[in-house]
């Protein structure tokens, strides 16, 4: 009988947060795949009960230092849904602008510092910089431009302080946005260059079989490439308002990891993130981005997760285009925020975090105190798909030496840019060490 082998990575590197990977396989196939997240729970949904509704954006930002704006956006929109507030077009444009900033800095961090070293064979961007100093410096400059947007609108790059239920605490004058223009224009050129560079990386060939295609899920909007608005759509025909999220998606307790996996009711695993957005909303990208994709021969539909680095770079280019468009058409809002009184109500919202769909639902009482909170981050929604990828991929790579095979698996996880800090508020400590399988 073939001796079974295991791949164990006790601490996944170049992901945000702490996770581990366990795979058991032999010549007969892959028997067990566990993506484990051993970062301890932080209980956001628990301790938000009793807190003031105005605090939701400040508190939930602390779920993740990599995508705080995404948490703030979903929290704001959910609270506004509860209170019946509709932000003005001017306020919506500013929110879109700060979201562009976060997409740029977060995607660029992933492209250059976490993912590219895999393709070029380095353990880190710092190590890569020794041989490819220009590439890393370009990445840092692009990231800096994204951070400049978040800093101007939010006050600081990590955990911005300026966004508020109903709008912003303070809105900038048009003259404050203008100095950004030059920096963004230059960075947009570098972003276009990044797309071409990313497309030239060596991609492992990996496509799912016809009967096992991904179901991509993202917001979809008739006029906009989705960020804060839209219906929830999928490549298998799902098309629902966000208010119906809870009846179509369910979090499942998976015994072997004791982790909750988000699934589509009756269908199972699905795929959120840049590839899902791109595949469902290609037509809403700006002409420059579509032209760039065409120039490099990149198709409007991409199903190889290793190529997510190209899709991310196309989204970075889009975010620069969109940020410049917003700045050029900027009208300072009459009031920084819409005022309202709290009332007993429930609201929900989903926005497109850099890593994908981020769903929040809150109930508040008549004094505005939160009575119930539910947060479903993108990484938890992708977990099952990540494990499925490993299961599908492994048989094709079993001829590789073990260290290469392990590197390939880690790279496959990094395709999703999983943010473990985000997802751990409902994941259990599950540490595994060599020779001892923790329970």
């Amino acid at each position, binding site marked *: 009988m073939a001796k079974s082998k295991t791949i164990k990575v006790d601490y996944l590197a*170049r992901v945000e947060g702490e996770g581990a990977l366990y795979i058991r396989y032999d010549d007969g196939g892959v028997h067990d795949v566990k993506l484990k997240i051993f970062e*301890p729970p*932080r209980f956001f949904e628990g301790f938000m009960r009793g807190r003031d509704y105005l605090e939701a954006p400040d508190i939930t930002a602390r779920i993740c230092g990599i995508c705080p704006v995404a948490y703030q956006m979903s929290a704001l929109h959910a609270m506004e849904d509860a209170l019946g507030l509709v932000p003005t077009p001017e306020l919506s444009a500013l929110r879109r602008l700060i979201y562009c900033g976060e997409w740029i*800095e977060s995607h660029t961090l992933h492209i250059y510092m976490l993912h590219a070293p895999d393709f070029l064979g380095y353990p880190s961007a*710092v190590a890569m910089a020794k041989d490819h100093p220009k590439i890393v410096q370009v990445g840092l400059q692009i990231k800096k431009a994204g951070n400049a947007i978040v800093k101007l609108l939010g006050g600081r790059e990590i955990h911005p302080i300026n966004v508020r239920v109903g709008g912003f605490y303070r809105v900038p004058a048009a003259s404050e946005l203008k100095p950004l223009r030059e920096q963004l224009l230059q960075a947009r050129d570098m972003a276009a260059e990044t797309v071409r560079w990313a497309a030239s990386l060596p991609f492992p060939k990996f496509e799912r079989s016809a009967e096992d295609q991904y179901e991509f899920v993202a917001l979809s909007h008739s006029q906009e490439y989705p960020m804060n608005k839209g219906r929830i759509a999928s490549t298998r025909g799902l098309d629902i308002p966000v208010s119906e999220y809870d009846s179509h998606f369910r979090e499942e307790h998976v015994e072997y990891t*004791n982790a909750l996996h988000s699934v589509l009711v009756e269908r199972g695993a699905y795929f959120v993130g840049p590839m899902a957005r791109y595949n469902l909303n290609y037509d809403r990208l700006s002409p420059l981005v579509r032209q760039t994709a065409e120039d490099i021969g990149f198709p409007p539909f991409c199903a190889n997760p290793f190529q997510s680095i190209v899709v991310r770079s196309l989204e970075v280019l889009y975010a620069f285009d969109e940020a410049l468009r917003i700045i050029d058409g900027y009208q300072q809002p009459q009031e920084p925020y819409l005022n309202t009184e709290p009332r007993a109500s429930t609201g929900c919202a989903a926005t497109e975090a850099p890593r994908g769909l981020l769903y929040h639902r809150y109930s508040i009482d008549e004094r505005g105190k939160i009575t119930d909170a539910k947060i479903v981050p993108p990484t938890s929604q992708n977990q099952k798909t990540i494990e499925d990828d490993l299961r599908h991929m492994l048989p094709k790579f079993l001829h590789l030496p073990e260290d290469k095979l392990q590197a390939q698996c880690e790279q496959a996880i990094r395709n999703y840019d999983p943010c473990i800090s985000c997802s751990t508020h409902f994941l259990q400590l599950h540490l595994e060490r060599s020779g001892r399988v923790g329970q």
Partner: protein
Amino acid sequence: MGNATRPKLAVWKFASCDGCQLSLLDCEDELLQLADKMDIAYFMEASSQPVEGPYDLSLVEGSITTAEDERRIREVRAQSRALVTIGACATAGGIQALRNFADVEEFTSIVYAHPETIATLKTSTPISAHVPVDFELQGCPINKRQLLEVISAFLYRRPPQVPPHSVCIECKIRGNVCVWVAHGTPCMGPVTHAGCGALCPTYNRGCYACYGPKENPNTESLCHWWKTELGADKATVVENLRNFNAAAPAFETASRREEQDNGEK
């Protein structure tokens, strides 16, 4: 070029959002320079090739919330010549320390389908509650300028210049109008540690104390003024002391005192 004489830097993570270690990667203009001066030996968020200890400088993010992490932090200390904690989680237990004032079992049952399987401590505590710490850099998140200051101070063997005064001083330096005096906006600035550059008042909102307590804060006076001048009720005062630095001793004592206060003031 691998240079054995360069100091070895390690970055560790416990329960946290990753934001403080991200501050290091957000040093877009200085990161490569820093990598020249120091060997970034252990930094899992950035590198898949950890170098073994001992380390000359360990930066520690996050709070202690599990028995395993209690053990791990002692291991980190043993391998580190200097240990600097970064951020509200590592210096004060972070937002997750709200559990210290509540029933963790209830929290667990709210969040988890099978609470019996969750391995967590009843408290979230700062690193200094477990091992000696050489310097604490406050903030949620830390300020990257201050982080660079602490790292250079370590490199040049001098004490870090991180002023312990309040956010009010930073407001004066920026020339801000006081949001409290001018607009009656509740503000935690008088008791909050400087470092953010008085961001919130600059953006027309009151400080919410994400940098934790300043040196010797007069919380009693602040609470009194919040209640008598701004009309805040006790719950609001407690809520403002209990956020990102709830378990910092000065804020914890004040919030417990407020909770027990029978409203004579």
